[in-house]
Each structure stands twice: as C-alpha cells, then as structure tokens.
C-alpha cells in the first residue's frame, strides 16, 4: 500500500508524486490535507492534497525538500512505498459548500505562492469542473521555479504571474500584482491565499485594505492531525484554534500570522541540529565561539 506510482520534478527542487492511497482518495476534497511517513522511523509530515483520482484510488502530493525528512521523501523512487499515508484530514474548502449557481456568480481570486500553487490547483480544478473559472495570481521568486503552469492555465479564468525578479509576468510579489489588478479596475468577492505564511500575511493585509474577504490555508506544526496534541494551535480572532481539525482554512483577516510564524519556528534549531548531525556528523560545536 501507499506505493508511489509516479514521481516527477516540477522544477529544480519541487517534486510531484502520485501515491496509491484508496481510502484517502475516496473522500479527498479540495482544501484537505494528509500526513505521510517515509519509513518506520519517519516523522509525520502534513501535506496539502493537490489532486485525487477516486477511480484509481490515488492522491497527488507536491513538496519541496527543506529539512531532513522532506529530503528523505525526495529520495523515494517510483515503485517505492511510503510507510504511512493517512487522511483526508481537516475540512474541505468552504467553497465546496456554496451552491453552484452562487459560485458561478462570484468573482473569485486565488493567490498561490511557491509550492502553495499545488493545493490551489486542486481547488481551481474542482471549481472548473463545476463550470466556475476563477482568476489566480501565481507568484514565485523567479520564472524557473514557477510550477504547473500548463495545468493551471487549463482550469483558471485569468492566470497572472508575479515574479520577484521580474523574469515572468508582473515584476514584484503577489501583493504588487494584486494592487496592480485592483488599480486596473478588477474587483473580486472572495480571495483564497495559499503559500508561505509570510506571503499569506501580507496578502491578507492587502485584501483587508481592498475589502476582499480572504481565506488562508495554515500549514502549522502538526503531529497527529486529528485534534489530539494541540501542536497545531493558532490564534484566529483571539481564539485558540487547532489547524488540523478546525482548519486548515481560516478567515485570513483574523489569523495572528506573527504568532503562527513564531510557533512554526519552534523546532527549527532542534531539527536543524539533527539534520546537520546526520549529514555531517557531530559538527555542531567548536569553532564559532558563540556558545562560550
């Protein structure tokens, strides 16, 4: 079970895998996530579901190796299996509950940053199947790390690009792009933003200024993903919420992003140390003199 049927590189450092997980696929809806473990001693890694095929019983994940565990995931080959895939977790996007006639009347905007593009694709694809074509701003640092361009074109009304270095589309980040669209007279009823927390924070600040209600998908620390540990808790409108069971999508205007970003860094030193130790042996002492 949980066999990797397909693995491909979407850019220099972003991978897409199609994984056999019939129970997850059967119920997966846009907006939900799953948890994988590479092997028997692996960490539990939450990843947003990027596509599903209910007939074949597969789900698609997209990830960018950042630390020890995701780097290990990237080493898995087609034909290998994950030790565990569990889900679907969290709630589906609230859009799936809106009657189709209403959806068709809405002007929807998605903002996708980096690997966040993949879960946005899942939502856009679902909407497209309902006959709803939303607009999307897809942002990345540079053109060579923009992913899924072709697939995104197929399911989006207008797809705008924003690159920090100006190598493609609008020169600047997604906020610059949104402001530009707004200035050109584009108006939206609702916005969904998925990407790095820092990007979501600034995007939400801007949509608030522009008066576009916004949903953001929170990729917090997680352990179980079922409401059991509280590692994923965050403040939304001053209230404690568990991202795994209350979310992962929340009202972007109400999320305390600063605190969420702080909490996301909680294990950075511990994880980093483990990773270095594993890669380089016991190198984390002597030399810099900082600890003395």
């Amino acid at each position: 079970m949980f066999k990797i049927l397909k693995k491909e590189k979407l850019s220099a450092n972003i991978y897409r895998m199609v994984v056999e997980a019939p129970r997850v696929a059967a119920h997966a809806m846009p907006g939900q996530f799953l948890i994988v473990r590479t092997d028997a001693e692996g960490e539990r890694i939450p990843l947003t579901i990027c596509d599903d095929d209910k007939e074949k019983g597969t789900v698609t994940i997209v990830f960018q190796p950042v630390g020890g565990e995701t780097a290990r995931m990237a080493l898995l080959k087609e034909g290998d299996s994950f030790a565990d895939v569990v889900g679907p977790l969290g709630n589906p996007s609230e859009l799936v509950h809106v009657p189709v006639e209403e959806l068709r009347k809405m002007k929807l905007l998605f903002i996708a940053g980096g690997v966040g593009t993949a879960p946005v694709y899942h939502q856009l694809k679902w909407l497209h199947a309902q006959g709803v074509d939303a607009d999307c701003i897809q942002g990345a640092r540079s053109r060579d790390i923009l992913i899924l361009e072709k697939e995104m074109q197929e399911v989006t009304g207008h797809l705008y690009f924003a690159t920090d270095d100006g190598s493609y589309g609008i020169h600047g980040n997604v906020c610059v792009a949104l402001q530009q669209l707004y200035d050109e007279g584009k108006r939206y009823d609702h916005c969904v933003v998925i990407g790095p927390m820092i990007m979501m924070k600034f995007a939400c600040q801007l949509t608030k200024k522009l008066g576009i209600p916004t949903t953001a998908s929170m990729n917090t620390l997680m352990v179980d993903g079922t409401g059991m540990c509280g590692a994923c808790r965050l403040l939304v409108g001053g209230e404690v919420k568990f991202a795994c069971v209350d979310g992962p999508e929340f009202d972007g205007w109400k999320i305390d992003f600063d605190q969420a970003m702080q909490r996301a860094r909680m294990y950075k030193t511990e994880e980093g140390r483990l990773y270095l130790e594993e890669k380089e042996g016991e190198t984390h002492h002597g030399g810099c003199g900082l600890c003395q």
Partner: protein
Amino acid sequence: MDGMKKVPVREQDPKVRAHNFDEVCLGYNREEAMAEAERCLQCKNPLCQQGCPVSINIPGFIRKLREDDVPGAYEVISESSTLPAVCGRVCPQETQCEGRCVRGIRGEAVSIGKLERYVADTAAEMGIHPQPAKTRNGKKVAVIGAGPSGLACASDLARLGYDVTIFDALHKAGGVLSYGIPEFRLPKERVVDREIDNVRALGVRIETDVIIGKSVTIDELMDREGYDAVFIGSGAGLPKFMHIPGEQAMGVFSANEYLTRSNLMHAYREDARTPIYHAKKAVVVGGGNVAMDAARTALRLGADVTIVYRRSEAELPARKEEVHHAKEEGIRFELLTNPEEILTDENGWVSGVRCIRMELGEPDASGRRRPVPIEGSEFMIDCDAVIMALGTSPNPLISSTTDGLATTTKGGLVVNEENGETTRPGVFAGGDAVTGAATVILAMGAGRKAARGIDEYLRSRD
C-alpha cells in the same frame, strides 16, 4: 521475612533511572513471586476480587502460582483480562484490589499487581499465546481504536469466531499504551507490542492510518464494507488548556503533544527524527498520571522539573507509586498552587509562570474540596517549558459524522450500561470514548462487555 510487609520489588536506583528510559520497576523473580504469593490469605470471600473492575479471580491465580503453575495462573487471569502484563504495571491497585486486601488492614496488602505482572511476563517467556477460534462464523465486526477497549473487544469477538478488523487513526496500534504512557513505565516492544501481537494471533486484522469519520464513515463500513456491527473505542484524545494569558507562547505544550513526540515518535532517543524540546527548567501543570508521565519524561530529557497542582497531596489523582517514584527522582511539587499567567521573553519563548497559592474550601460537585486562591500570594517560577496535563475529553470526529449517536454534555457517547450499545442499533462503544479519561482496566472491561453485547445482538438477528 516480616509477613506484614510486601516482598520489596527491585527497582532501578532513582539517581540512575532519572537519566534513562528503561523500565523503573524490575518486577519479581520466581523466588520473590512465590514468597509474595504465600502472603495471600486465600479468603473465602475475596474482597480483592470485588475491588477489581473486571473481577479477576485473584485468590485463584495466586493459588496456581503457589503451585508453581504459571500457565494455570495465566489461564485464570485470562478468563477476565486481556492485557495482564499492562494492567499489572499501570492499574491503580491501591484503590482497587490491593485497597480491599484483608492483609492491608493491619499490614501491607499483597502485591497483587506485581504478581499479575510476573504471571503475564513469565507466561510470555514460556511462549504461551492465546489460541485462535477453531471455527469462524463468517460475520464481520469493525472495531474503531486499537487502545485497551478496542483490543479487548476484538480479542473476545475473535475468540467467538467473528471476523474482526481494528481501525486506528495513528500509524501504530495501542492507543494510550503506545502514545501516552512512557517506556520507563510500560515498555513498548517487550510488553505493549507483545500484547498486540497476541491479539493478532487470534486472527484480528489491524488496519492503521484509518480515521473513522474522515477516511471512511461508520455508515460506509456497515453499508459498503459489509460489517455487521461496530465497536467504538476511540478514547478521549482531546487535550484541555487553561485559557490563561501566554498559553500560545513557544515552549508551551499539551502533555499529549509532549508524550506523543517522546513515546510514539521515539523523540527521547538520540537517533529519532521527530524533534522534542529539551527543556532546562520545566513546569508541569496537573496531578494525574499524565502529569507524572510528562514530568518524568522531561526530567529524563535533562530538565529540572516542578509539578504545579491546585489541590493538596491527598487529592493527587495519579497512582501512588507514580507520585512516589517522581519524588524519589527529584521532581519538585508545588501543591495548592495554580498558574495564572505564562510569561515570555523577547523572542516569544516561555520564561516563567506566575502562580498563586490556593487553600481548600467547601467540597464541590466532585466531592473534593474546592481550591480557592489566597489573595496576594502570587509568586514566580522560572522555566523555559510549560506542559499542560489538565485532562482530556472525547474527540467529536466520530459522533459528528455518524447519524443517531447521542452524546453527553461532556462529549462521551451514550451507551446502555448492560451491553455497551449506543443509541444507534448495531453500534457499540466503551472505554474513554464513553466515560471520558479513566483507566486501562475500565476501558478493557467495557470492551469485553461490549463484545458480549455484540455477540448477543448478532445472534438475535440470525
């Protein structure tokens, strides 16, 4: 040997064990067990048995033990219990069997728990396994949750010839036994995994990574996957927080998170890939087994640990042995004390807890005297981690995705006391999912009762 006293059980030296995760209690050897068994008075009217939530024939198994018949003793225990190696280690014997022991009136009670453990461990060493049913009846039962209640229910049904599958949300079976109770109190490979293997040996299938209510619903299990009945043993997994200022700070954990990282994800090991915070000074809030386990885990990971509990020592809900062990290991207790605020440093990390002293006032609804704050008694405890062990409640994931399941105001499933049946025909429940956080033995007993209920229910439909 002084017949008034228990045969002392060998334990790791507190100074040594404070730095390792090996089991604290080493258990009796044959000689010690035989000597302790001799202390049993073999009462005609055994009060100990009445004190046991699953009515193990205690004098009966001790008699077999005296005859040096461990397999016989194991058989007697197995009539009533599915997890003796676990219960011998974690039951609150002092308020159950041993609390009623007649020996205990003028001396120390017989060490029933340690004898139970000896029998279970020795039987395992002798290679005694439960035998699968000879004939199968072709009926399918789904069990949700591989904790004590689910394992017990599944075992009994498999023995009766049912085709049983256990589904668990986590990647490993065992429930709290795997993710909550630490290695130094309940060894995983040697005890928990062995008990789970025994359940498998009966023919029970265990499918991990399935969250009922998310991956599949109870309706689908019954309508599409052909299960004739369902048992819900999903535990009480939701952690409580205090809702005091600073609780969102970095360095504040629920005991569930801290213990899950350490136990389920093995973060206590040097080579583990899941991180855990190694605190220098930790404050653990709460007074139950969970608080003791979190405190003693933090201690072993190198922290100086203080337990903060709002009532007095007499009300500590933890097993006596755990409190005693925690003190021996050097854990400080601030009793009649309640946290009011968690303070943070400039980086948002915990720097201390502001507490207030309490005194006991009038009894509350639980019959225990209610702690009330003493004005002006605030004081600070410096720390870099706070672990909240304030209790847990049932997860609404299943009740909210299944029609016809009534719950109490506290979120527990409503069941018929006699047979464990819920308000939905064919669906049974037991353990912490019904009672809220309780004990292993009660969960196991409820699982067994429901197994009988399910058997009767399915037979009545033939």
